[in-house]
């Protein structure tokens, strides 16, 4: 139930229901999402969506940290690690 899906903010509108609503694209599938908990979010940024609410903004730079760790481990030890391609656009 704690499933969270990352998606790209497509639009933000001041809605009639007194809450910031908008549309998030999940690799092309779009869904209406409430942005009450990510009030500073901008179109084009990525959010983690849980049951129709954006609960966290995703940090693109931090997202690459796991690949930096892998690279460092590869350099320190003798792991044969391919170069990560990093974040790809869907």
């Amino acid at each position, binding site marked *: *139930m704690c*499933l969270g899906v*990352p998606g790209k903010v497509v639009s933000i509108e001041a809605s009639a229901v007194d809450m910031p609503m908008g549309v998030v694209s999940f690799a092309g599938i779009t869904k209406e999402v409430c942005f009450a908990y990510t009030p500073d979010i901008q179109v084009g940024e990525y959010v983690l969506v849980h049951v129709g609410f954006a609960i966290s903004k*995703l940090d*693109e730079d931090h997202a690459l940290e796991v690949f930096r760790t892998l690279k460092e481990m590869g350099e320190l030890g003798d792991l044969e690690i*391919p170069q*990560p391609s990093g*974040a790809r656009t869907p």
Partner: protein
Amino acid sequence: MKFVDEYRREEDAQAFVRAIRAKVTRSWTLMEICGGQTHTLLRSGIDRMLPPEITLVHGPGCPVCVTPLTQIDRALAIASRPNVIFTSFGDMLRVPGSTTDLLTVKARGGDVRMVYSPLDAVTLARQNPEKEVVFFAVGFETTAPANAMAVRHAKSLGLTNFSVLASHVLVPPAMEAILSSPSNRVQAFLLAGHVCAVMGWTEYEPLAKSHGIPMVVTGFEPLDLLQGIHMAVDALEAGRTGVENQYVRTVSREGNPAARAVVNEVFETCDRAWRGIGVIPKSGYRLRPEYAAYDATLKFEVGAITTEEPKECIAGEIMQGLKRPSACTAFGTRCTPEHPLGAPMVSSEGACAAYWLYARA
């Protein structure tokens, strides 16, 4: 899909497995809290890739599984009423109560509907002013902000035909209960990343300190879990305690204060019974008195509830990490996803469902 696909690459996963093998010198037992993580671990085969020194035990992080039977039976009684539209996340529909489940109530004519978001239930209440719309508000800290906002939104709209059956549970008190048990064998925790997206991890710091163990905030993709395990093993081998964060792209130490503010406005902490485990002090949320008008428990008198659990079901021991699903005598025979004895066999986060789906018996 960005932020997903790159965390599923096999060659990177293999690199982490090699790094874990290189690091480990003795046996360690780790618990992943969240049932979603359990499913990733088994689906991607991580449990079979790890060195034999590492034992993963599955935690109680399946809200559907720990919702007490009295609440399920209460939900079934309310959903059976003629003037009620009963709404729930899909996970809950097939969870067995004492005698039936929500899908069966629906088949018998009850108006039971699955919703994607609690706001959908509020919309249903607006569209059906002649009906009572009830939302089954279960979940951990991740889901509480959404459910709290639904209640607050219904109040701001002046709706009088919307209520929630709240059965929220909280992670840290459950961890405290596990760590304090004489039968505990957990030496490190992988913390539930999405719970921490809301709550941050400050409340785990005293827990890690008092029990002298490491905890790693961990995400849900295969690489997240492998890195989380690597960090936990690194901490265990080095004798390091405290909280570390693997899920840096999503979680910060302070979490989401805006979400917590609304949760604290609508909910207050209460003692809560966990199915199969028992009452854990201060381990749940209930509606604050100011929101009593939205409390389905107060709104619908359902009479005395006498619950009955199947004697053969060992869900409670599984949820506490004391037994694996494969140790259950009913697993795969008298208990299957089609005919479940306990909730962990039907929930998408249940450990029994994971063992069944990925053939780990």
